[in-house]
Each structure stands twice: as C-alpha cells, then as structure tokens.
C-alpha cells in the first residue's frame, strides 16, 4: 500500500478512529494488525520474512538480557546480526555477488555460472533489518532492556508509518511510546495533517514532476547536451530530496496524529555548509545509525589519522552499498567518504585561502560559497546514484564537462516538452518558497497552508512512480 493511494486515504483514518476508540490495552494489537495489513497489501507472502526477523530478534533480545556479561551475550548478538544480514544478503546482495563471481570466473577463463535468485526485493527490508539490528546491539551494549511483550516488539519492527522507508527508529525512542496511553490531541492532529500535506506536496508536485525530465535524460545520456545533463542532475538532487523527505514527512505526520513521535529525517540538507553538516541533515536516521553502529565501533575519530580516514571511507562505502547492490551506489558512498577525508586533509589550506580572500570579513558570502560548494559536491555524487550503470554515469560526467551547450529548445527540454520544463522550474520555485515557512512547520495559520497546498497538489500533482527509497 502506498501513501499516495486511495486505499491509504481510507485505511489511515479508519485506523486512527479505531485506535482512539479502543481501550489502551488493545491498541498495540490494532496497530500491529494494521501494520501487517499495510505490508501484506503489497505482497502477503513476504510478511513471513518480517515475522522471522521479529521472532529471531525477540528471542535474542530476551536471551541477552539473561546473560550477565557481554561475552555470554555475544552468541545471541551474532545470531541476530547474521539472521538479519543473511536475509538482507539473500534478497538484496546475492545476485550482485553472483554476477561479480561470474565476471571473475570469465576473466580467469573458468567455465562457471552462478545460480541466481529470481526473488523480488521485499519492500523495506533494508530499513526494518537495520532497525532490529540496532535493537539487538543496544541490548548487547546495555543501552536498553529487552522488550518482553512480543506484540509490542513486533509492532516496533513493523509500525506501518515508518516500515517501508524509515525513519529508522531506535528502540529507546519508539518502544516506550507504544506503552503510553495516547489521547487524541487537537494540536497533534493539526500538525500531523500539516506535515502530511507538505510531504505530499514534495512527493507528487515536485519529485514526480522532476522525475519526467530526469528519467528522459538518464535513460539516454548519450543523446543529451551539457546543459541538459547538468539540469537533469540538478533536478535529480531536488527530486530525491523531495521524494524521500516527502515520504518521511508523511510517515512522521501519520505517526503524530496517532500520538507517536518519530525522529526528524531531513533538515534542509542543501543548506549545509559542509559535507559533514550535510550528513547531519540528510537521512539523519541512517547516518546516525552508521555513526553509532559502524563508525564509532571502528574507532571513529579517536584513532590515528590514517585509521580515522579509513573508518570514514569504510562507513560511507558500506552506506553506499546499503542503498543498492550496484557499483554506482558504492562509488556514490565512496565519493562522500572521500569528500570528508579531503575536508579534513585540506582544512588548513581552505581556511588559509578563505582568510586570504577576506571571506571571513563577509560572513554571508562565506556561508553562501560554502553552501554552493557543498551542494555542488553532493549534486555531482548524485550522478552515480541515479545513473543506470557506471558507463552511463561516466557518459553523464563526460557530457557535462564537454561544455557542449546546444542552444535549442528541443535539446533543453530533453523531449519532455517546454510545458513540462516550465512547470518543473515552477515547482522548484514553490519548494524554495516553502522554505520561508518555519522549519518545524508549527504554523500560525495551518488551515490556510493545508488548503493552499492541497489545491496545489490537486492542480499540479502527478501520478508518479513509487517512492525512490522503496527500492532499498
């Protein structure tokens, strides 16, 4: 079931109504049933994978609680991690490795063909496996206690607003909320609807509109000129932000109406002044997950310099690989790791240069340049994220660097028509305008915002594809 579907428009109000009508002791059951229904409306048979993951982690959590030392908890931690990573590997990464093994065999003149799996990638698998792994790791590290109520734990794994595309919640934040007796709150409902409306605006007005242009260019990069690929890449940067943050907004808004607080997942990332700050604003739930469960356990920055750079690169390479079983995602992650390492290595020189240019005397200009540079680096990396394959990514870069600008409307519109291009620019402008609103969306006139934004959605919205992050 998609958020932007008629089914959800009926499903969600029905769940809300039943939720607040039911006695508190049965609400977890309603939410669990609703969450399973939500997931099974996509493919019912894949619920067994979630149930399996839930069972393993519930068992491992309880067993770890019984062990007095980390040494005795370790086997259960390994069981949890291997089960979740095993599921992830099987459905998401097996075919990638099988293909690479075949390529290696071919290069070594060995006659071998790996069997491949023809299974659909379960929706949300990268999200809920990471969510449950964080639960197990936190118990192992004595940060939280195991949840004894199987139903509430199962709800933590499958809570429908954030099940398929995050935010990746921590047990310490979400589990206690399921035990709270939530009351219907006027303020929560108004804010939740405001957030949901804004999320839909970002998704169906901005992201789905820009996708038309981006898909046209990236499906045939060889046929585009420099201006077109640069514009398409810029559009993709906005598209993926709106698609993903839009989903997060809808998830957060839905949860808020029910009384639950999910973590904020995006904080206007393209206003970051450095790549380091970018990752404190982009997909925050994932970046903090990798910080806490990958980067810090590796030693973080409390190690010798070369090891620090190594930790950064490993963390971001794995993060890239999390996004997809393709070399392009790994390169995308690696690029961001390289950006961070370069920022550390060149910090003194950059500061000296800025001082020499007198930029510190003009803070606003300094900030603007930093923001533009960060945006540029992030947008460049998106080329690899979006391209269908590595050769296409290199073609895009080559075309952009050719500075071959065909000054024709046909080239600039990439075959999608001048109307679509004009509306694409318009909706990016509308997005920019929305940044004048308070970041937290606690508005003085929420009704006006909801009415105006809903009409914009009706008049300019498109029937787009699924949310991009569903493929992860």
């Amino acid at each position, binding site marked *: 079931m998609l958020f932007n579907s*008629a089914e959800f428009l009926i499903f969600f109000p029905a769940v809300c109504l039943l939720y*607040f009508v039911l006695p508190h002791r049965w609400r977890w059951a309603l939410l669990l049933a609703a969450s399973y229904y939500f997931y099974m409306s996509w493919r019912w048979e894949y619920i067994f994978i979630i149930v399996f993951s839930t069972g393993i982690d519930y068992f491992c959590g309880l067993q770890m609680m019984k062990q007095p030392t980390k040494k005795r908890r370790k086997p259960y931690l390994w069981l949890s991690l291997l089960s979740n990573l095993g599921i992830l590997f099987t459905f998401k990464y097996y075919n990638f490795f099988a293909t690479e093994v075949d390529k290696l065999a071919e290069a070594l003149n060995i006659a071998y063909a790996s069997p491949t799996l023809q299974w659909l990638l379960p929706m949300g698998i990268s999200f809920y496996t990471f969510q449950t792994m964080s639960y197990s790791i936190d118990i192992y590290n004595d940060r939280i206690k195991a949840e004894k109520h199987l139903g509430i734990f199962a709800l933590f794994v499958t809570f429908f607003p954030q099940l398929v595309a995050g935010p990746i919640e921590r047990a310490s934040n979400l589990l206690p909320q399921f035990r709270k*007796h939530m*009351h*219907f*709150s*006027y303020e929560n*409902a*108004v804010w939740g609807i405001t957030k949901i409306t804004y999320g839909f605006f970002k998704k169906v007005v901005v992201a789905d509109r820009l996708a038309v242009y981006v898909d046209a260019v990236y499906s045939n990069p060889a046929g585009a000129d420099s201006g077109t690929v640069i514009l398409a890449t810029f559009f993709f940067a906005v598209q993926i932000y709106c698609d993903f943050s839009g989903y997060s907004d809808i998830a957060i808004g839905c949860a808020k109406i029910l009384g639950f607080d999910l973590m904020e997942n995006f904080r206007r990332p393209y206003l970051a002044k450095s790549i380091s700050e970018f990752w404190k604003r982009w997909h925050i739930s994932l970046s903090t997950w990798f910080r806490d469960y990958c980067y810090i356990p590796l030693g973080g920055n409390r190690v010798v310099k070369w090891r620090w750079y190594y930790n950064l690169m490993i963390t971001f390479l794995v993060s890239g690989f999390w996004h997809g079983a393709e070399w392009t995602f790994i390169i995308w992650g690696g690029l961001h790791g390289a950006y961070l390492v370069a920022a550390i290595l060149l910090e003194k020189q950059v500061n000296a240069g800025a001082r020499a240019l007198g930029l510190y005397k003009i803070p606003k200009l300094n900030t603007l340049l930093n923001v533009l540079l960060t945006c540029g680096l992030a947008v460049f990396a998106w080329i690899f994220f979006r391209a269908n394959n590595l050769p296409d990514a290199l073609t895009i870069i080559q075309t952009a660097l050719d500075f071959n600008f065909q000054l024709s409307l046909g080239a600039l519109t990439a075959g999608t*028509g001048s*109307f*679509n291009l004009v*509306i694409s620019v318009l909706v990016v402008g509308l997005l920019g305008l929305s940044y004048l609103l308070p970041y937290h969306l606690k508005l003085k006139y929420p*009704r006006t915002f*909801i*009415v105006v934004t*809903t*009409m914009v959605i*009706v*008049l*300019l*919205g*498109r*029937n787009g594809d699924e949310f991009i992050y569903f493929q992860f």
Partner: protein
Amino acid sequence: METNSSISSFKRFALRFLLPTAIVLAGLCVLADWLVTEFVVFQNESSGAYKMHRLFDEQHPDEIPVLGSSRAAGSYMPEHIHYQCFNYGIEKTQYRLTSILLAEELAKDKTTPIIINFDYEFFREWFGNMAHFIPNLDQPALRAFAGERHRAFYELPAVRYYGVYDDYYKTWLAERTDKNYSSRGGFFLKAEVAPAAFAAMAKKRRNTPAGWDISPQQDSAWTELLSSTARPIFVVVAPYHSSYFEALRNLPVGQAYLAKLDSLPNVTVLDFGQTNYPDDHFMNTTHLGYTGAAAFSMELGTALKQRGY
C-alpha cells in the same frame, strides 16, 4: 476523565478544523473544476475531451464528422475536405470506441455523410488517455467503455482531473502557438522531421512486423453497425509511409476486408493508404505532417465532390 478529554479534543478538531477546512476545500474544488472545464478543457477543439463532449452533448445537424484515431486527428484538415466537416479524431481510438462514437452519431437526426478513418490496427484493443474521458463520464456508454479504469475520485470536482491537468494545459497552449496549426478539431504539427531522423524511423518501421487482424465477432458487429443506417459512410484509409507496408505482413487480407466493406450499400471505401507521398509529407511512418495532411485532405475533398458532396 482522559476519555472525555480525547472526545472533546476530537470534537474541537472535527468542528473547528476539519469541517471548515473540508468545506473551503470543497468550494475551491468546485470552482477550480468549473474554471478548468469551461475555460480550458472545453476550449480545446483538438482535445479528445472536447470532441467527446461535442459529439455527445451538442447538436450540429449539418456537420460531416470525421471519426478515427490520431491518424484521423492529424491527417484530415476539415476546411479542405468539406466546409461542414469536423475532425473528431482522438488518439488510440479504434474499433470499440469508434463504434460507441458512431452509434451516438447515428442516433442523431441527421442525413450528412460520415467519414471514418481506417487503420490496419483498427480492431486492436486500445484504450487511450483517460483525460479524454473524465469530463464525459456522465455518458453511460463512455463510462461503460472506461470499465475498470474508472475510479471513484473521477466523481469529485477538480480532484477528478488529478494527474491529467497537464494534458489539458498542454493542448490549450499548443492550440495557441504558431508552431502548430489547428482547425475544427484537426491538429497538425508544422515542424518538419529531419531527413536523417525520418530515415531512422523508416528503418525501425521496416524491422517492426505488423499484421492485419479481425475476429468474427468484431467483423459481425462492425458490419451490422455500418449497415444500420441509411447515412452514407466513407471508410477512408489515410496515407501511410511506404515503409509501413514493407512491415505489414498480410496487406491483401486487409484490402480484401476493405473491399467487403465497400460492398455494403451505404459504405464507400476510399483507399489513399498507398498514395506515394514523399517523406517530407509525413511526421512519422503512420502519421502525416502538416504538408501531407493538406495535400491528402484536398484529394479527399475532391473525391467527395466527385460523389456529390
């Protein structure tokens, strides 16, 4: 106490927020729907939505309609065919939809001839763009044709056009630029296709086999419909590029079918399909461009004059 606070909070939310918001939204949607329908959708003569509205809801007793697909929309210049001609060509309109439109036309108290563009894909099951149907779903025949594509939100003002506003805006704009020519329902692109690009299209067409096909049920129903009227019906095959026929595997079978239609007392087949127009007369291998449409329409007009129309 806690339950009471939830109930009162919900009442406050429903009465002070949800209801007023819903009322304002409903009012705006009704207004937007009326504005878009009256000033955009039904102002686009060349759009499928307007054509269906015109056919079903308006009376033009002296009009000679041209029915058919995008080949009709882009090949028949009404002013060159007959001064009373109107082009009802709509993309992806084949047998099933043409039957519905023809039946509606035949129900009118008219004696003028009817022109039906014939494609060699005429009996394929195509649906086309829902945007053509949405403003006309009050017509039972079109609603039935939409079938399972019909959604509940098509009944809601403004919301019914969600996702297809682009189609109406683009058509509205396209009719008002000098890059195109539109006239009485016909829409013709003036831009010429570069020779190299057209050659590539023709090559691709030659490598795309196609075939004429009809089922006995379709044959029977179509013949019955054509024969149900005394009004003269002209079944016209608009020109194709020669590469199309190189890929069409059973042209003689299709032509035999046309001959069979021609034997019906009120039907005359005018086959311009293999008229040897040069490449620059075409937009692609199955559709004429502006120049080709003008030339073909004049020939068709002459053919009608020779038959007393």
